[in-house]
């Protein structure tokens, strides 16, 4: 079952409104409007012909603006993209779901209630990229300290000079020969 077929099944089941197929150079993905994410995910999990029961990965990416070199048109708007990789063990299929969010206020509903595995992945995405997952049971930083400032995997992130009085300068603390 490839992504195209999944989209067709979704359309047939009547939940396909607004979902488009992203066909990159390599892996395709389904682009889902942020407000319909939970509904589509629930359907993906529960529909017997789909049964996407395992959440593999949640990725947040800061997409910078890309303009066409000649025409200066924006080919990719700046924003944050959240990608969910979901797997169906029954049908041996893997699908990527994409959600586009704005950089200023990246908010999307949490899917942790559908796939508990997404819980920690979403926390990490929040930690690294700063996506706020609404309805998440325990949305706090997971890898970085709780009082860390900024979201390191954003492209505009600047590494802090110090943290709680500890110098974070890159130069090693030992004397150089």
């Amino acid at each position, binding site marked *: 079952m490839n992504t195209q077929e999944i989209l067709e099944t979704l359309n047939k089941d009547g939940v396909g409104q607004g979902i488009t197929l992203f066909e*990159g*150079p*390599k*892996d395709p993905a389904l682009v889902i409007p942020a407000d319909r994410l939970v509904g589509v995910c629930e359907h993906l999990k529960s529909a017997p012909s789909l049964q996407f*029961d*395992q*959440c*593999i*990965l949640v*990725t947040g*990416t800061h997409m910078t603006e890309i303009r066409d070199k000649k025409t200066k048109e924006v080919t990719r708007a700046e924003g944050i993209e959240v*990608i969910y*990789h979901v797997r169906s*063990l029954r049908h*041996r299929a*893997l699908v*990527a779901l994409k959600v586009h969010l704005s950089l200023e206020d990246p908010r999307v509903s949490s899917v942790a209630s559908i*796939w*508990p*595995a*997404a*819980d*920690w*992945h979403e926390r*990490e995405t929040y930690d*690294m990229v700063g996506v706020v997952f609404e309805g998440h049971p325990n949305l706090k*930083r*997971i*890898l*970085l*300290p709780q009082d860390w400032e900024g979201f*390191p*995997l954003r492209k505009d992130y600047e590494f802090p000079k110090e943290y709680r009085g500890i110098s974070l300068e890159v130069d090693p603390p030992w004397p150089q020969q």
Partner: protein
Amino acid sequence: MAATVEARPPDKYVDVRTQELQINMGPQHPATHGVLRVAIWADGEIVTRAEPDIGYLHRCAEKIGESVTHIQYVPYTDRYDYLAAMNNNLGYCLAVEKLAELEIPERAEYVRVIVSELNRIASHLMAIGTYGLDLGAFTPFFYAFREREEILRILEWICGARLTYNFIRIGGVMRDCPEGWLEDITRFLDYFEPRLEEMNELLTHNHIFVNRTANIGVVSLEQAVKYGLTGPNLRGSGMRWDLRRDDPYSIYDRFEFDIPIGTGIKGTVGDCWDRYWVRILEMGESVRIIRQALDQIPDGEIMAKGVRHLAFKCKAGESYQAVENPRGELGYYLISEGGQISYRSRIRAPSFCHLSILEEILPGSMFGDAVAIIGSIDIVLGEVDR
């Protein structure tokens, strides 16, 4: 007895106050396999709530992936799941090769399979050895290390390093097999199989060991799927799922092997013993794969043409490549915009997902069981924190 209790006026009952004890297991604790901290709320010996806390070993893996070239990133992948560095290399290289559309020479593919399966055996040996250690059996740990040492020697022979190999490269492998190396592997496999039997006698079927692990930390299949468990932990819960068979990468579709699953021989399906047993059986399957690969390995090149270290470029695109690590599904999700450096490199570490199930299965177990459960899901903190 009942009469005396009734004879007492109710307000004179001795009010025995019990207090929940919060106890910090880790970050420095012998049984947490690294720097994991589990905050445990315990009622006497019984755990009532557990909350894993990670991040003590965070090394900015994904951020580094955005600043070094693909070729330079391969040695970093060694350091995530450092017990199965070959498999990590393999996953990353496959992901990049998928983006760069590289053709890998046959011989390189076979060498890759051999070294990753050897590394899988080494990793499982480590897992069962330290599991014995968690349960207080020291000697199996040393036996496992003795056998693992042989594997490390073989891997050291071909690539010069013992733990962080950086052997599987984008486009092939680093070196061709030295003379006598393949024969040495056969010798090792012949030596290894009886030793595995010994391990079973010493630890697997030991009455105390079985009592410590059977019916403990039961993860039902539903829970396992829900929490994204993969690899031996998912198979221990009774799901016959292995990426080497179900989503074949590299040349795994050419080999014949079984996928062992937990069947609840000693207790319930999905208990600690099942997870442990799946690992033992998997080592046997790896031996089978290696034997087949040794029979089939062809002569030829070991590096794809046109891979130059300083000028290697990927095509634009994004792709997810998953491989079956000893610990589960290791995935690399790479976004490339062309050029030498990936735009985003996301790592799906199996141990990270496995840890999140602790909150669910630890409560209600005893303190010694908590150690047994943490050991049985076999985590590597380097991979959890990345």
